[in-house]
């Protein structure tokens, strides 16, 4: 590299790329194998969910928002239901709350095991990928027998839940968790000890406690950097006050720490589910919910598998929501990638990307895709401005 006008060698990743299971466009400028800057562009899977929610009534919007994300669908539907119930002054019965929490924790197991597989695949460790996904089927089967579906459980209604936890479901949950715990101990052992895998995870994508604080990252990513940030502990919702979880943190802040934090969180989840199943409150499953919700606004937050999920809901007293703002954990964490990859090897980029468990469909919830270019009125687009790529580069 001789002068300041060295032409940048840009490696585009996405929108179609084997490393990305969902579409997004990244541009990494590289010098040899080292990344010097990064930028991002989303929007390939826009469905206009925020606008869509404004055009639907409160109950319809619940199912729309459940489809923000395929993996943490119950988290989205619960955070919305909790917010709307608070606005309407209705509170779900204790049994419904406990069932919601059980489902949330089952979903966390589902999400984290999926992530272990994806991250292992990015590291070229397909055996771990196959095994963890095989064992993930256990929790999928539990969810299927509980709610009828593997994803998009549709277990919530406004004012409660649809499905009761009977003895048959309790049995399948408890026996499934026994098996899962055994397997999770095995995977924890693998990610902690396998030398070839450690070579790809230790010291990769390291984020110090200070950086994590400054970037405002959330979820397991930030807990792996030693920041104590977990809404289940900080601001208990549902039954988390009575059935608490312990916050799992690590200090290393690298990919390996994220593996350890995520897997250890699952032990907390299984413990929490067992406690809930054994001490499930008796009572109704749901209460009546009004068609109109009184005017007001609320902030609803829960800890989704990927981090704190933030909803801002505003009602103007009608049958439809006035505004639903969805801020998914992935969007909050993306900055840690854009800043974090600089200076790393290109080979580590997919690993760092995978490290935050990105969910592009979560990010891209906001817009109606429609093209008005047919009458020629479309402006000459922004493709020119896209050429100046780097907003983040180390000198």
């Amino acid at each position, binding site marked *: 590299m001789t002068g300041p006008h060295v032409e940048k060698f840009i490696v585009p990743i996405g929108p179609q790329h084997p490393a990305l299971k969902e579409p997004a466009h990244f541009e990494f400028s590289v010098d040899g194998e080292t990344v010097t800057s990064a930028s991002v562009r989303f929007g390939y899977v826009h469905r206009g969910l925020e606008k869509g929610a404004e055009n639907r009534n409160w109950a319809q919007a619940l199912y729309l928002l459940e489809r923000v994300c395929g993996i943490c669908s119950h988290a989205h539907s619960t955070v919305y239901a909790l917010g709307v119930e608070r606005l309407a002054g209705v509170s779900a019965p204790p049994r419904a709350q406990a069932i919601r929490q059980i489902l949330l924790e089952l979903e966390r197991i589902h999400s984290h095991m999926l992530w272990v597989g994806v991250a292992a695949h990015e590291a070229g460790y397909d055996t771990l990928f196959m095994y963890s996904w095989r064992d993930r089927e256990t929790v999928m089967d539990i969810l299927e027998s509980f709610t009828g579906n593997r994803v998009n459980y549709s277990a919530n209604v406004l004012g409660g839940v649809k499905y009761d936890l009977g003895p048959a479901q309790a049995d399948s949950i408890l026996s499934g968790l026994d098996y899962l715990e055994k397997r999770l101990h095995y995977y924890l052992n693998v990610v902690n000890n396998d030398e070839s895998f450690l070579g790809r995870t230790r010291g990769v994508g390291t984020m110090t406690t200070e950086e994590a604080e400054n*970037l405002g990252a959330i979820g397991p990513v930030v807990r792996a950097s030693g920041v104590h940030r977990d809404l289940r502990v900080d601001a208990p919702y549902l039954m988390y006050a009575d059935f608490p979880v312990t916050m799992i943190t690590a200090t290393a802040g690298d990919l390996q720490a994220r593996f350890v934090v995520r897997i250890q969180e699952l032990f907390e989840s299984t413990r929490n589910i067992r406690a809930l199943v054994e001490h499930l409150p008796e009572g109704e499953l749901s209460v009546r919910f009004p068609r109109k919700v009184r005017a007001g606004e609320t902030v609803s937050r829960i800890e989704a598998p990927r981090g704190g999920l933030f909803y801002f809901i505003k009602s103007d007293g009608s049958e439809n929501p006035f505004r639903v703002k969805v801020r998914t954990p992935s969007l909050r964490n993306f900055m840690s990638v854009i800043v974090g990859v600089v200076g790393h090897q290109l080979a580590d980029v997919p690993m760092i990307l995978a490290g935050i468990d990105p969910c592009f469909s979560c990010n891209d919830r906001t817009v109606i895709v429609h093209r008005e270019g047919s009458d020629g009125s479309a402006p000459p687009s922004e493709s020119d401005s896209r050429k100046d790529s780097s907003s983040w580069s180390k000198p």
Partner: protein
Amino acid sequence: MTTETLLEEAVQLIGDKAGGQSVPEPGRIDLTVEPARLLECVNALTTAHWGYLSAITGLDLGPQDGHLEALYHFCQKAAVLTLRVSLPRDGAVVPSVCGLIPSATLFERELMEMFGIVCEGTPDPRRLFLSDDWPQGVYPLRKDFIVPVPANRPEKGTAE
């Protein structure tokens, strides 16, 4: 530290710079902030390391009302502090907070394309979500944007 003391602390930090103050629900405080004093407030919060910027919500109060709002939600533990910046529908401009909080760039890009609120001085003004051929000056999350119905969309069933 309880949520109340956290919120008190925040109000002490920036209460004098803000206009109005309201408590919409337990654990939250809303402060109305002039666009010109936004950076001052954000600076006070970031230097004191109070919370993290959780989201920037754009809010269109409708063409009759004639105002847009940008809500800056700061979260610390269970406390949520919201800075409400009220803006006119035409020529809504807020200063960019990216100088203080670099990670706000994605939120600001979203705010700009969705609501037409210009974040002055944001490092990357490109679109984040909207497609490249999306017409200029059309902001989908404003209330006067009517969702175009595709031709093949099923009609709502009607009772006869």
